[in-house]
């Protein structure tokens, strides 16, 4: 059926595409952003060629592109090595078991150096964990603060005091506390991972907490009165009225939180030598080869892009969750 349709009717998609490329839209959607990026690249190239550091010239876009490709190749090479290692192990153990079914075989993990891609993934997992941990506390506490003036008055001084604290101040404390309290044999999480995640959580708690409080406290009085007249139980009131009404503000908080968390994480990883992008940057800095600056620049761009994508992700999530499909989100 679709075949006959398309045969009888010429495919209009190309015409539609052309029509959608009206000059105005093209300028807004493509040309102007592209122009901005090109200008930036030119300025970068121009100034980079004039900055002489102890590690050679500051890398321009071309050198950074080269380093990106190198990092990609290193990743592929490392993966191949890992695969080969597991293959050899598999064969060795299989042979052992074939010779003697009761033989004690050892399965080891491949312990190669984490590549750039590995570090990005580690950072992503860590920031996600810290972000989730923070919001498990921040959203319920924010709702409580918004609903009850008493709770708000009790919690507000703590918010004000801890909000401006830098992650670097928390980090030593978190490290000591984690190593003191988290001493399980066969731990589920790496200690370094916990340190980073908890530090991120401590710093990205506040935007969500504050915005949720404001959102909940600002619910239309009439809607609250409707709920009181219906004698809704507190739980139904929160589920059916408070949360939907506060969703836009909660998401504003979540987006600020995630951005903060991502920034904090890089700093924490650098300082604590926890695996992740921050450690990658620090290692390259210590390494001090002629390629180091280029590789760090790749990391800088990656950090920016990931941050941008995380925000887009939250925006998409907000659009899906929000009841007000007409609202303009940016």
């Amino acid at each position: 059926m679709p075949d006959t349709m398309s045969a009888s009717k010429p495919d209009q998609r190309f015409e539609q595409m052309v029509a959608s490329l009206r000059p105005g839209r093209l300028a807004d959607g493509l040309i102007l952003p592209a122009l901005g990026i090109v200008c930036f690249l030119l300025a970068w190239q121009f100034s980079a060629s004039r900055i002489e550091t102890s590690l050679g010239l500051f890398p321009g876009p071309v050198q950074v592109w080269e380093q990106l490709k190198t990092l990609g190749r290193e990743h592929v090479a490392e993966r191949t090595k890992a695969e080969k290692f597991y293959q050899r192990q598999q064969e060795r153990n299989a042979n052992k078991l074939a010779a003697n079914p009761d033989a004690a075989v050892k399965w080891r993990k491949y312990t190669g150096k984490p590549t750039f891609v590995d570090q990005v993934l580690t950072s992503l997992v860590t920031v996600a964990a810290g972000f989730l941990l923070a919001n498990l506390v921040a959203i319920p506490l924010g709702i409580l603060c918004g609903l009850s003036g008493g709770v708000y008055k009790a919690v507000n001084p703590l918010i004000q005091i801890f909000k401006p604290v830098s992650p670097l101040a928390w980090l030593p404390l978190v490290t000591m506390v984690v190593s003191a309290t988290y001493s399980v044999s066969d731990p589920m999480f790496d200690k370094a991972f916990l340190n980073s995640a908890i530090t991120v959580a401590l710093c990205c708690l506040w935007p969500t907490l504050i915005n949720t409080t404001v959102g909940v406290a600002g619910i239309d009085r009439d809607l609250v009165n409707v709920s009181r007249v219906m004698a809704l139980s507190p739980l139904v009131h929160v589920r059916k009225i408070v949360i939907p009404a506060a969703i836009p503000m909660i998401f504003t908080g979540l987006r600020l939180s995630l951005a903060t968390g991502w920034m904090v994480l890089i700093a924490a990883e650098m300082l604590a030598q926890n695996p992740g992008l921050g450690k990658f940057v620090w290692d390259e800095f210590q390494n001090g080869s002629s390629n180091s600056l280029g590789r760090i620049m790749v990391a800088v761009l990656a950090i920016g892009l990931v941050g941008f994508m995380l925000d887009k992700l939250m925006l998409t999530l907000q659009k899906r969750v929000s009841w007000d499909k007409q609202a303009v989100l940016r």
Partner: protein
Amino acid sequence: MSMTYLDITGVGIEFDTGGSKFRALQNVNLKMSKGEFISLIGHSGCGKSTVLNIVAGLYRATEGGVVLEGTEVTEPGPDRAVVFQNHSLMPWLSVYENVALAVNQVFRRSKTRAERRDWIEHNLRLVNMEHAMDKLPGEISGGMKQRVGIARCLAMQPRVLLMDEPFGALDALTRAQLQDSLMAIQADLGNTVMMITHDVDEAVLLSDRIVMMTNGPAATIGEVLPVTLARPRDRLALAEDPEFVHLRQQVLEFLYAKQGSRHASSADVVDSAAPRLAPVAAPERLPAGSGDLGSGSEAA
């Protein structure tokens, strides 16, 4: 009028406005019988809404109290459902879900799921909104929203239906339609209704008694005007009915002659009939207090 159903006795309220006290109401007394339709009318800021909120339980009176069927009102509850002026539907719930929220709360034990479903649809049918059950409030007109707001309240089967300027934000034509719907529903179900209005015509058309409030601060009930027009009432026929015209006249006189001079905001009261029913013959004035005025009127 038989026994007292709703009894407002000696109600006064003081608000704390940053250190100083503001007395909004003083010694408000009113008795309503079952099935009665009462309008509260008065100038803006005279405390009409405060009276309604005290009956609803949303405010606590500083002195005096409200007794409904022998029980004192201490907190809000679905037996005193409120229709708010700006409909107050949850914008994230569909029309059906908005009514369902109330029905599931009130009848969660006494009705099965299927019965509740029927009950929700029945109430939406009452206000002619069954066609838009799955629409969000943002997708329907203001008049439709208010219909849904009324359906939500009716669905709670309140002992008293409280309406806070329910049609105030609507255009004249929609308002007339909704007034007719409300009259038909009330005639059918026999609801006890307390309605706040700014609209003199609306008050005369719908009410059994019109409670006219003095200006604040320390507002109270000034006069109570019984409306003995036969039901069902037809707005077109009544437009030139001498008794109707006379009743309007009395309300206007109270608002403008007796209370108007004290307050600058007298323009808030809408004499909506004036432009719409232009060629009204000069009414022959009936002697004040003519007819068998109902007893229960409690002018304080």
